[in-house]
């Protein structure tokens, strides 16, 4: 065959393949835009979490113990005096407990024991008794060591000679090291292990043409689904076990290569316990993935659905793993976080009975809920009504055409805006005010208009640009005026951010004091009220509403809105705000009420913190605060009623 003919055919086929691939918009979305969004998000979250964790550990004073006086010991008095001075000078970092024993370290009554040693020469010898398998103890040892070794009085000779004395066993140490990496890896492996079997058991049936055969069998959907989920769970557990084993062995191998003299035992009992902790989460992940994959028409579509779900579960797990939070009863109910922290505690041999119970129960509860959802979705009516795209009836096609803006458009708008926003971050850092203005007016407002124009939509359809009724505008103002305090209180109760985060936020809001209030108001209240509304309650919300029921559309849009803010502690408040604003936009069929509410919400917060009224609210008596929250809630409810009355329920279909 001649070469030019070959080249011609090569080009021809290449172009055709590319065309086919690029026309599969869903795949593209997952393949390109998804990673663009997820990794920056993950990186930002993890820096925030790490910073919070560091400051949390820093804030905690180290409990330093000294033993009871042994008579005639030369160094004892000097050292005691040294520590007393230290603790009185820095009470926030050190607490002194006298008459302590080494076993107090083991029993976690103190973090480090400063033990004077025999045989002082020029320097005084001390041993720091600590437990290196305990984070607080490691930190206390480092702090005391840093202080003692830094003492250079007489003739610039080091005054102390400091030895470490580690109480932890080899097993506890390797357990500690494993506890830092293993939980996240186990969650990752369980998710990966459930991924393909879940698709195979559901969307795979449709693909292989056995769906109808299965549906027509005389069994309850819940029994069928439970059996499928159990089989997926078993595969996921086997994957998890294989990884656990392989990781433990590799870990030991690497450590003994680094230090051949040292014996590193594998904490078998702890690993065994960790497998027990794996079981309910494997069931939960499998149920969720089976439920999600049951909606999909094809294997590929299921992959596209499960990939976001997979990351959605990975994010809390990563956060928990980096943040290294104590497993409180409240956290025991947060899916993903709870199991990661619980696995850590199991490997540390530190799991409390109450949290064990709560974690297992809540995970089992979520798993059962997910299973019920899966059984609900796996019903012949649904499965057979989803038509093959290839032989969709003419009527079905027509309904799709009616909604000009659909979920993929919405996702695309979100992903693009997010990428633009991230790309503009350096700009925002460098030129604070101008950068923030540019990011919002160009990156959101301008972007939406370009996007809408390029897609050839009518602005009124894509954004909801029409005048609202007076009632809707007034109601929106009331809602915005009350919302900030309701949402703020909710945050305080559910996930109180550490003080430095609040401080940072205030600084951001008010700048370094030299920015006039009107400028801040323009920047943080007026601009977002317009730009964020146009983007989120524009194509993003309306696209979702084109594909889903109003409720679902509002919820998805609110989740996107809160993710966009890239702030772990404001996830919940911005989500609630997103729900409210989304409802406003759909109910009033106009973008304007959302802008009004948004303006009131942000504006009040700024004015209050500018004039120092916020701290006054915080310091007031609990009963006053309660009354305030009650009043604000009433305001919001009246607002909702006003909006609802002025905008009778109509079809929200675009």
């Amino acid at each position, binding site marked *: 065959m001649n070469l030019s003919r070959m080249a011609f055919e090569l080009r021809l086929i290449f172009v055709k393949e590319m065309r086919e691939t690029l026309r599969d918009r869903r795949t593209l979305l997952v393949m390109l835009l998804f990673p663009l969004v997820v990794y920056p998000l993950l990186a930002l979250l993890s820096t925030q979490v790490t910073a919070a964790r560091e400051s949390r550990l820093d804030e905690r004073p180290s409990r330093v113990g000294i033993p009871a006086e042994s008579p005639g010991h030369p160094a004892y008095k000097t050292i005691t005096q040294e520590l007393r001075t230290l603790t009185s000078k820095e009470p926030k970092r050190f607490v002194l407990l006298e008459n302590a024993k080494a076993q107090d370290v083991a029993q976690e009554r103190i973090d480090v024991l400063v033990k004077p040693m025999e045989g002082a020469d020029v320097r005084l010898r001390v041993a720091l008794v600590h437990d290196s398998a305990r984070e607080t103890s490691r930190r206390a040892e480092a702090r005391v060591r840093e202080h003692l070794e830094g003492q250079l009085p007489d003739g610039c000779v080091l005054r102390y000679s400091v030895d470490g004395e580690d109480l932890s066993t080899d097993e506890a140490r390797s357990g500690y090291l494993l506890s830092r990496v293993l939980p996240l890896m186990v969650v990752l492996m369980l998710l990966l292990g459930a991924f393909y079997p879940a698709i195979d058991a559901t969307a795979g049936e449709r693909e292989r*043409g056995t769906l*109808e*055969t299965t549906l027509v*069998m005389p069994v309850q959907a819940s029994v069928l689904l439970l059996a499928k989920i159990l089989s997926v769970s078993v595969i996921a557990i086997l994957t998890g076990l294989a990884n656990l084993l392989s990781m433990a062995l590799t870990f030991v191998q690497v450590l003994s290569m680094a230090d051949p003299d040292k014996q590193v035992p594998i904490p078998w009992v702890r690993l065994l316990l960790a497998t027990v902790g794996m079981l309910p989460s494997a069931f939960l992940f499998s149920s969720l993935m089976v439920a999600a994959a049951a909606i999909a028409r094809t294997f590929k579509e299921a992959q596209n659905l499960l990939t976001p779900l997979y990351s959605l579960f990975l994010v809390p797990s990563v956060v928990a793993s980096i943040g290294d939070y104590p497993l409180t009863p409240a956290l025991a109910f947060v899916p993903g976080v709870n199991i990661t922290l619980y696995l850590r505690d199991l490997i540390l041999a530190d799991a409390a009975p109450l949290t064990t119970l709560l974690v297992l129960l809540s995970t089992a509860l979520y798993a059962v809920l997910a299973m019920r959802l899966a059984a609900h979705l796996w019903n012949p009516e649904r499965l057979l009504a989803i038509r093959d795209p290839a032989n969709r*009836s003419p*009527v079905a096609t027509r*309904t799709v055409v009616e909604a000009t803006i659909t979920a993929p458009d919405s996702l695309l708008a979100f992903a693009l805006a997010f990428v633009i926003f991230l790309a503009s971050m350096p700009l925002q850092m460098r030129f604070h005010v101008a950068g923030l203005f540019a990011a919002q007016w160009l990156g959101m407002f301008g972007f939406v208009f370009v996007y809408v124009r390029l897609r050839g939509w009518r602005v009124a359809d894509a954004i909801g640009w029409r005048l609202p009724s007076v009632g809707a505008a007034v109601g929106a103002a009331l809602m915005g005026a009350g919302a900030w305090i309701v949402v703020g209180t909710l945050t305080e109760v559910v996930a109180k951010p550490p003080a430095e985060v609040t401080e940072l936020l205030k600084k951001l809001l008010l700048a370094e004091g030299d920015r006039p209030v009107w400028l801040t108001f323009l920047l943080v209240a007026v601009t977002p009220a317009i730009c964020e509304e146009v983007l989120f309650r524009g194509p993003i919300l309306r696209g979702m509403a084109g594909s889903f029921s109003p409720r679902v559309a509002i919820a998805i849009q609110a989740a996107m809105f809160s993710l966009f803010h890239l702030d772990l502690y404001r996830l919940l408040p911005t989500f609630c705000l997103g729900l409210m604003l989304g409802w406003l936009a759909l109910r009033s069929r106009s973008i304007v009420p959302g802008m009004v509410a948004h303006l009131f919400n942000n504006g009040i917060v700024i004015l209050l913190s500018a004039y120092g009224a916020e701290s006054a609210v915080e310091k007031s008596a609990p009963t006053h605060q309660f009354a305030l929250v009650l009043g604000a809630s009433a305001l919001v409810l009246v607002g909702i009623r006003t909006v609802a009355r002025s905008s009778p329920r109509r079809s929200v279909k675009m």
Partner: protein
Amino acid sequence: MAFLFLRYAQSRVTNRIVVLDLQRSFGSLRAVDGLSFSVAAGEIYGLLGPNGAGKTTALRILAGLLKPDGGHAQVDGLPVGPDPIEIRRRIGFLTGSAGLYGRLSARELLRYTASLYGVPANRIEARIAKLSESLGLESLLDRRCEGLSTGQKQRVSIARALVHDPGVLILDEPTTGLDVIASQGLRDAISAERARGKAIVLSTHYLAEAELLCDRVGFMHEGRLIREGTPTSLRAETGALSLEAAFLSAVGVTSSLSGTATP
């Protein structure tokens, strides 16, 4: 209407499948729009019509897969709707796409189905042996289904639908994709089941096939029956030479091909 109900009450006694004024819509599409027919034991009834006439929807309602919006349907003495699982237990259901679990062997598949449909454990092997003899499956039983040819797959699939010896067979375009010989084999198997007293309803858009196989046929168009009768009576009624021509004349399409017999 009263007359219809009287007929319905009468036909319940003798008929295994009774459908009266059945309705089902998907959104604004009325897939089944007032369909009525009945099938007696030992009878093969053919639902004939073009793609999108509502045949599959009607059969899926009878199989307890979809719920009707209105009307009545009864299968093997049970009303469709309240207990779809019991209905599914009493029917054999077969579609053109064989729908076999490819990674199981034919024998494993038949055992699984038989157990799930409640065939007593001690009778399963005998049942499989009997079916494989009559359908010629002996050499296939221990091969994985995914490796079988289309015709072989369809034979295993019939065995699957018959393994619990149901009184009612619902066949949705059972010969789609089969060659001439395999189709003939399938028709023989279906006729044999008729001889054993089963009530069989099948859908097809091959009119020649309906003529070969069915005792009675109903022309379905836009969700309802437009003609019903034996193949011979329908030909006589429309004055057409073939069932094909009869169908076209019934839906009011004139064709230059009228009068020629096509497969």
